């Protein structure tokens, strides 16, 4: 159980990072490190049981339908890797408190802590699916950590993502095959399944997939590219990534799958050869680097190669060596990385060609680095020596003919010469030689190293020294890890510094001897190597591979990627005309259609047709916007006539009211647009006409061929005869809307609400000066007519130049009609169930009141309180949904109407639903009038859009993409601070504390100050 608590504590750290970074800034690392230690302490009982030889397991159902379980299991491997992740993590977090620049650093802590969570989940997972998920999480976390370092990390993080996700895909394939072949998602059961012994081909395939995944994560050749790239990240990130997390995940995966694959020849051969090759290549590249951090990155590549080779050998001894070297590497590499951070901090550079002689200036750092480098180079008495010796012994055991072992040992030894050389380079070039001494003038002192920086960098390195002397304490953990990786053996590891004289010791001595020669001749050897001998680097290779794909994608996107709507619409229209027109014509010509009903037409249809034809002609031909709008309204009237003639009073009323409101809104918009349409069409005028005629013909043919050829439908009879009995309402259309098909109506309502919200959202992404450009830049602006009939102040002058006089008749009309309209609206709403009316029609009539009030005002002003429209929309949708839920609770079906008599009155919950409809429609219309109508009076469009969310403001907000007022105020205050700092830096005297400085929060926003946001940064204000 306590394993879960460990994970829970890690998850808690993720959540805690938000408030901690907010209150403590970069010092959030301290409590987070403490949380890590708590997690480790919680893990302690599990670890001690594992050390006693047990395995601890825990599981709970996850997705019962799929038989998935969330299962965790702690064995030796899990314990070792959990300990590394948590303890190194705690050290890195403590180090970060001094390393990071002051500030919140939320993303750093959040991603790093999330990373640890994923890593602990990965190593404790006992379920293949869970394993895969955690694996991908670590990939994502490393991507985010690299990407957060800004522009320099962008390309690097993308390469990391690409490579680690390739590994994710291979692991997914492997997991999929394993689950399919064994029929279980349990990790241990799958590994122990007999199918692997029966089908060696399958086993080999999965082994290759798994090792590819591990290679991408552990940066083995040729996937090593991303790791040096990851240097773009902050140093603590690198330290953690390299020592404890991502790259160790690959090693972990190999060990986890060792029980299954350790005797698969492909596994052995590939891991040993690729591992040693990577070890040598990494060492060589490391020697070439002058940037200490890059050098360190390649050294990780090289060290991991050695571990991979040891795992590849697959014997008990080899795995013990691999586990031990993993521990040793975690210690010295995290420490060395942080030491590079220390050097960087005090000198401002990591390039060995620029560093002064640091040995005397920073003796403690120097000696710590010497110890770390000695461990890496494998010099006694460091832990790295013990583990490297062990790996050499292990390489001798490489499976295959006798010579393979010796070949592996020689290969490992040669690679280790390189390791020795670059370790020496760190120490000598970093601290002793001072190649950049002459660039350092005497009066440029080093930055003092904060204690936390030095202490926590040294801690892991120094831990390696006593551990080596009492290396026996690691016997048990290593044993347990080995027995987890090789379940059938009973390992008995005896770690010691001194093993007597054997081949490995000879190898080590030879390495040291050669290394000393290199050190002696370093002044000529090292700079010679630093020339870029390798033109082809990984980033280039990836770019070469990706570029053609990206180009092909661009080409493909060109087909559909136009702002131009014609490009999107015309192919659809052509296809529609062909299919519909051709199909209908075919049906008519072949005579396969039923006879048309004889009684389809009425004379009223002709009236409607004439009006429609005239209206459409006017709309399409007119170049004047006003004339086109009036013609469009004529079409609407024609349609209304047609609908009434078809026997739809509800539909006809809706159409009429919607038409009126639409035309009003178009009029509002037209006052901000040019008087006439532009001339040039998108498609050639003739092509547009041709396409229009073809599509029109196709639609006409389709309507003629496919309708009116059957009797009235059965569903119509059902609604007409049964509807009134079921619903107690005689207006069948209304009962369909609010009862039979209320879900449709709810959907429609949501569309209405979304349209209102979307208008506000879109308009508040454009700044005021672009939304309503000032007159100088507004090409649509038409100056007031200058008619000098009578002098100023005369009635004629007022009639032309002032609005209020013209609004008086309208205001009188509103006084009379508004109450009447409200009453009619209520009646229509109430009677909707039995007679033409209902929520929609009543709401549209109510909206007409809004429209009248808006239009009758002499000044341009919003109708109603600023936030009312959004409240109406939200409330309406909410009311409709709640009514639906009431139905669910009371009748077991969403939106089922609940009805009954209250006295003589028959009431139904459908009425409440209709009320929701009413509110939402009214809200949308109010919002639309307020937003579209704002015509440069006191308030402009942007201010209205902001106010409909924020309430009354003194002016438009100067933000884009939904910044909240709090964020805006914070940003502006930060800008002001920056400006202030700049003036101070320029030598201006420190004035009194400016108003409003200090902590920024809800209380300092303009909402309480009553200061418009755009003026907040203006300090000249009193």
């Amino acid at each position, binding site marked *: 159980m306590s394993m879960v608590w460990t994970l829970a504590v890690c998850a808690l750290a993720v959540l805690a990072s938000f408030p901690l970074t907010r209150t403590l800034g970069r010092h959030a690392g301290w409590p987070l490190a403490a949380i890590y230690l708590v997690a480790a302490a919680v893990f302690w009982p599990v670890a001690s049981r594992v050390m006693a030889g047990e395995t601890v397991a825990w599981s709970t159902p996850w997705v019962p339908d799929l038989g998935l379980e969330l299962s965790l299991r702690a064995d030796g491997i899990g314990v070792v890797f959990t300990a590394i992740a948590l303890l190194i993590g705690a050290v890195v977090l403590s180090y970060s408190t001094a390393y990071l620049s002051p500030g919140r650093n939320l993303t750093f802590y959040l991603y790093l802590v999330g990373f640890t969570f994923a890593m602990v989940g990965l190593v404790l997972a006992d379920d293949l699916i869970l394993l895969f998920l955690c694996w991908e999480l670590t990939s994502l976390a490393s991507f985010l950590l690299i990407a957060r370092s800004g522009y320099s990390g962008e390309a690097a993080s993308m390469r990391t993502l690409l490579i680690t996700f390739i590994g994710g895909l291979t692991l997914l394939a492997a997991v999929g095959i394993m689950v399919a072949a064994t029929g279980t998602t349990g990790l241990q059961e799958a590994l122990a399944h007999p199918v692997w012994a029966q089908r060696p081909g399958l086993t080999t395939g999965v082994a290759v997939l798994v090792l590819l995944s591990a290679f991408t994560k552990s940066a083995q050749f040729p996937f090593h590219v991303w790791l040096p790239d990851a240097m773009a990240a902050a140093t603590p990130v690198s330290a953690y990534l390299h020592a404890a997390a991502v790259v160790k995940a690959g090693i972990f995966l190999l060990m986890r799958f060792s029980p299954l694959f350790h005797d698969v020849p492909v596994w052995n051969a590939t891991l040993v050869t690729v591992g040693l090759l990577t070890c040598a290549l990494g060492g060589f590249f490391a020697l070439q680097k002058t940037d200490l951090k890059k050098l360190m990155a390649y050294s990780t590549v090289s060290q991991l190669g050695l571990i991979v080779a040891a795992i590849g050998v697959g014997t008990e001894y080899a795995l013990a060596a691999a586990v031990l070297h993993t521990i040793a590497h975690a210690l010295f590499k995290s420490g060395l990385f942080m030491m590079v951070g220390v050097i960087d901090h005090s000198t401002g550079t990591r390039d060995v060609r620029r560093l002064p002689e640091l040995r005397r200036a920073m003796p403690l750092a120097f000696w710590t680095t010497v110890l770390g480098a000695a461990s890496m180079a494998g010099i006694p008495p460091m832990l790295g020596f013990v583990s490297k010796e062990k790996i050499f012994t292990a390489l001798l055991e490489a499976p295959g003919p006798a010579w393979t072992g010796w070949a592996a040992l020689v290969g490992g030894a040669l690679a280790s010469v390189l390791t020795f050389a670059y370790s020496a380079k760190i120490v000598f070039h970093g601290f002793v030689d001072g190649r950049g001494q002459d660039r350092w003038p005497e009066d440029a002192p080093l930055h003092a190293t904060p204690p936390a920086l030095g202490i926590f960098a040294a801690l892991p390195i120094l831990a390696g020294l006593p551990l080596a002397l009492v290396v026996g304490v690691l016997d048990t953990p290593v044993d347990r890890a080995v027995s987890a990786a090789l379940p059938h053996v009973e390992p008995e590891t005896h770690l010691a510094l001194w093993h007597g004289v054997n081949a490995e010791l000879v190898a080590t001595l030879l390495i040291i001897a050669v290394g000393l020669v290199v050190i002696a001749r370093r002044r000529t050897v090292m700079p010679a190597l630093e020339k870029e001998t390798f033109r082809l680097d990984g980033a280039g290779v990836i770019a070469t591979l990706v570029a053609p794909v990206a180009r092909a994608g661009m080409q493909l996107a060109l087909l559909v990627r136009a702002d131009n709507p014609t490009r999107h619409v015309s192919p659809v229209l052509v296809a529609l005309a062909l299919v519909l027109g051709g199909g209908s014509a075919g049906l008519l010509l072949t005579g396969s259609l039923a006879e048309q009903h004889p009684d389809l037409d009425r004379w009223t249809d002709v009236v409607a047709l004439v009006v429609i034809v005239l209206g459409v002609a006017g709309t399409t031909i007119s170049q004047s916007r006003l004339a086109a709008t009036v013609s469009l309204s004529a079409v609407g009237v024609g349609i209304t006539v047609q609908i009434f003639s078809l026997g739809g009073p509800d539909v006809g009323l809706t159409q009429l009211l919607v038409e009126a409101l639409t035309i009003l809104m178009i009029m509002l918009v037209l006052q901000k647009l040019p008087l006439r349409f532009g001339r040039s069409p998108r498609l050639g005028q003739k092509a547009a006409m041709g396409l229009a005629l073809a599509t029109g013909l196709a639609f006409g043919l389709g309507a003629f061929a496919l309708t009116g050829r059957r009797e009235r439908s059965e569903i119509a009879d059902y609604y007409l005869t049964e509807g009134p009995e079921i619903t107690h309402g005689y207006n069948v259309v209304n009962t369909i809307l609010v009862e039979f098909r209320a879900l449709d109506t709810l959907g429609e309502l949501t*569309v209405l609400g*979304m349209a209102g919200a979307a208008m506000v959202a879109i308009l508040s992404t454009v700044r005021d000066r672009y*939304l309503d450009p000032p007159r100088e830049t507004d090409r649509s602006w038409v100056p007031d007519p200058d008619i000098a009939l009578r002098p100023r102040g005369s009635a004629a002058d007022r009639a032309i130049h002032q609005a209020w006089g013209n609004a008086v008749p309208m205001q009188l009309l509103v006084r009379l009609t508004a109450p009447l309209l409200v009453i009619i609206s209520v009646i229509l709403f109430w009677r909707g169930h039995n007679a033409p009316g209902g929520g929609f029609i009543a709401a549209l009539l109510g909206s007409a009141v809004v429209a009248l009030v808006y239009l009758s005002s002499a000044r341009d002003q919003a109708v109603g309180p600023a936030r009312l429209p959004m409240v109406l929309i939200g409330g309406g949708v909410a009311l409709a949904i709640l009514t639906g839920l009431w139905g669910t609770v009371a009748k077991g079906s969403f939106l089922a109407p609940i009805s009954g008599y209250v006295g003589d009155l028959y009431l139904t919950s459908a009425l409440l639903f209709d009320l929701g409809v009413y509110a939402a429609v009214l809200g949308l219309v109010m919002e639309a009038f307020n937003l579209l109508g704002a015509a440069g009076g006191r308030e402009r469009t942007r201010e209205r859009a902001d106010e409909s969310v924020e309430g009354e403001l003194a002016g438009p907000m100067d933000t884009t993409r939904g910044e909240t007022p709090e964020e805006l105020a914070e940003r502006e205050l930060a800008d002001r601070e920056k400006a202030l700092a700049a003036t101070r830096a320029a030598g201006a005297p420190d004035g009194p504390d400016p108003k409003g400085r200090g902590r920024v929060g809800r209380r300092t926003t303009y909402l309480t100050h009553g200061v418009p946001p755009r003026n907040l940064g203006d300090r000249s204000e009193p």
Partner: protein
Amino acid sequence: MIIPVSIAVLVTGGVYLLLQRSMVRIIFGLALLSHAANLTLMLAGVSAWRGEPLPDRVDTAAAADPLPHAFVLTAIVIAFAVTVLMLALAVIGHNDDTKRMPPTGEERAT
């Protein structure tokens, strides 16, 4: 036979306007097209029955199919909402040309 002609006229005008540069004309085109779609839906109820679907006043045998009516009513209101939204888009920057976007201060170098 007559209503299909109306539909053809509406679609012709609608498609023509849809292919123009001005956003407002495109909105007008969509309005005409939605009229055409609504009439087509109404025709699905067979125009031989034209009585109002109010069973307490009109003989059920002569009443029109109420289901297309409900659909069209919904469609009209949705078309209204879409038109309003598109009008809001058309008026940004006081310029409704779909070929030359008005400046919004957010142009990125591409």
